[in-house]
């Protein structure tokens, strides 16, 4: 524990790089997991989310949202910093999952239909987060999906043009097929 605390402080500061911030997220989360104290972890996650500049720190913000999801309700102060992540297709699934875990009753004040709409947009965007978006839609509750979202998902599952165009060259086609399967399985759970 002292080593974790020392390392956490050593990576702080204005000149902290993105890898430093990534490390701080993991260090703070480890401290929380072992000590259960949210005091050191919330400011670290808030700092990571405040530095969110899409292109450069997109994944750092996703890691912070994932950590917030793991912490759950005590991460409520982070909700205002998590909400802007909904606008970025790559970050949206992590944000939705965090909102559902932190505030299961009202998802940070965001309507379920809005969350579903954003997630379906992610599913149709080649951003590396499509599978997470389908998983988040499952967490949202297949039976609760608005008809408009279901219609868009059906269209995505069946469209001839591939949804996934990037990634490891050998895996693009298979990943696209897996995504269609995942969407169909989600829709099958609607009942």
């Amino acid at each position, binding site marked *: 524990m002292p080593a974790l605390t020392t390392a956490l402080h050593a990576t702080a500061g204005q000149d902290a790089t993105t890898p430093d911030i990534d490390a701080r997220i993991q260090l703070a989360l480890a401290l929380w997991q072992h000590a259960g104290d949210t005091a050191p972890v919330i400011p670290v996650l808030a700092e990571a989310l405040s530095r969110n500049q899409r292109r450069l720190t997109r994944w750092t913000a996703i890691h912070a949202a994932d950590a917030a999801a793991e912490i759950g309700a005590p991460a409520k102060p982070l909700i205002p910093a998590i909400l802007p992540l909904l606008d970025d297709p790559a970050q949206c699934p992590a944000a939705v999952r965090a909102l559902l875990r932190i505030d299961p009753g009202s998802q940070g004040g965001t309507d379920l239909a809005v969350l579903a709409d954003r997630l379906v947009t992610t599913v149709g965007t080649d951003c590396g987060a499509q599978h997470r978006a389908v998983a988040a839609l499952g967490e949202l509750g297949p039976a609760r999906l608005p008809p408009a979202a279901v219609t868009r998902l059906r269209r995505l599952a069946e469209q*001839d043009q*591939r949804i996934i165009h990037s990634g490891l*060259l050998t*895996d*693009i*086609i298979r990943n696209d*097929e897996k995504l269609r399967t995942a969407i169909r399985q989600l829709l099958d759970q609607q009942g």
Partner: protein
Amino acid sequence: MPELSLLDGVDDIRWLELRHAYGGAGDVPALLRALAFEPGGAGEAFDTLCSSICHQGSVYSATPYVVPFLARIAAAGIRTVMVLGLLGWIADSDDARGLEVPGAARAAVAGQIGVLAPLLADPDAEVRATAVWALTQCQAADRLVPLLRERWDAETRPTVQATVLKALSVLDPGGAAGIAEGVLDGSADSGLRLMACAACVAAGMDWTGRLHEGATAWMADGDLLPGFFWGDRDPFSDLVIALAAHGHPGAVLRLVVTGLTGPVAGGVRKKAAWAAGELAEGYRSPAAGLVAPLAAVAGDDDAGPAAISLLRKLAGVPATVRAFAAVAGQLAAVAGLRGPGRRADQALAWLIELGDPRAAGLLARDLRHRPFALDAATSAARGRPGPPLPFDPVLLAAVRARLRADDMDHNSQVFLLTLLPAWGPAAAPAIPEVLAMVRRNPLGAGGALASIGGPIPAATEALSRAAATGTVARRLHAATTLRSLTGDDEPLLATVEHGLRQRAMSCGPPPRPRRHSAARPGAWCPP
């Protein structure tokens, strides 16, 4: 052109306040001077300018300010083709970084149409074609279409004609279709006929037998518009993708299959296999229909590697299962070719990925020459998609012999040390060979020994050594495996403490042990 008119005004720009890919743009005037006036240093200056102001397709705040000087340099006949190419890429960029006005880089090139237009009539055909492509990227249809029509009327070289027709189909699809009809009615060059078919598709016309004939005429001699340049696009692949995008799945499949299996000239099948790859990566419906034609050319010297590479990508796609069952014998025959060869290697990798029982024997026979197949055989053990290669005593003997060989490269060593653990105790005869590798690769060999023999002293010693040396990530990997094997927390805690002491913690979370449950330390489970 004297220096003053070429670079007139270059010193009036506040370059220090502008930026490019490598920071401040203060070096731009010197680079422009070297490009324009120092023949000995112009090549290097051009390369540096390219990567600075249009870096991998991104443009920066300095880029629009450089454009007028580049246009003058190109118009003066200094490295014209290269500079026109750079201007085209700048206009084509959709990734602006730090530009004051969105679209300013493209607008800057469009602002030079008057300076660059004379190059459309340059005596050098390559200059004319490159000027057509570069100017088209400006998307200024109103100003460019009249210039391009004028060029069409005067042009006699098929490759430049095709470039002009392509440009017109981008900027004025309806007008280009009219020209294309005329091309198809006459006896034009076969490459130009293909471009005319593409123009018809771009204009939304129906695909007919006449167009299929026009689009395949080039296959008889295989000569498709030598020197044609349209960014990084191939005219045949372009047509294939355009047809698919316009909703002609049957026609596009027939076109590609004609190129793969029809009576065509050398080089055509390879081009068709590449187009098939683009098609399958862009659209789902052609997948099943491509399997048999690709398998038919899998043994082809020219198209074989591309065909098998695509077949591997299609393996596992539900719609292709039946088609693959029908061609397994054909591909096994290619995989059975002896000795070095990419075709046989890729075909064997495909057999492994499909779990074909012939695979292990074929891999054993030519292990040294089958890097792709070895990669496929270890995919599952490395957490990638694909079935594990079942234990085979003949293959084990081949692996042992390979581990003893002097000419083994690092990748092969890593793959073999990944393959053995998947077989667990059945791989025990290989323990002497693995022990001999502990000094060179304590982590890989130690992990393999642990999976094969459990917590034997040789494994724990090797892993203990690996946990105390090298990078934090490798130490963590070794210590985690050791903990799973022995239940001893101490080496892992010591490694974690060591890692935390490092100011620059470059490692991520430790890799999950593959065969040992971290939740149940000490519980060794044979595979």
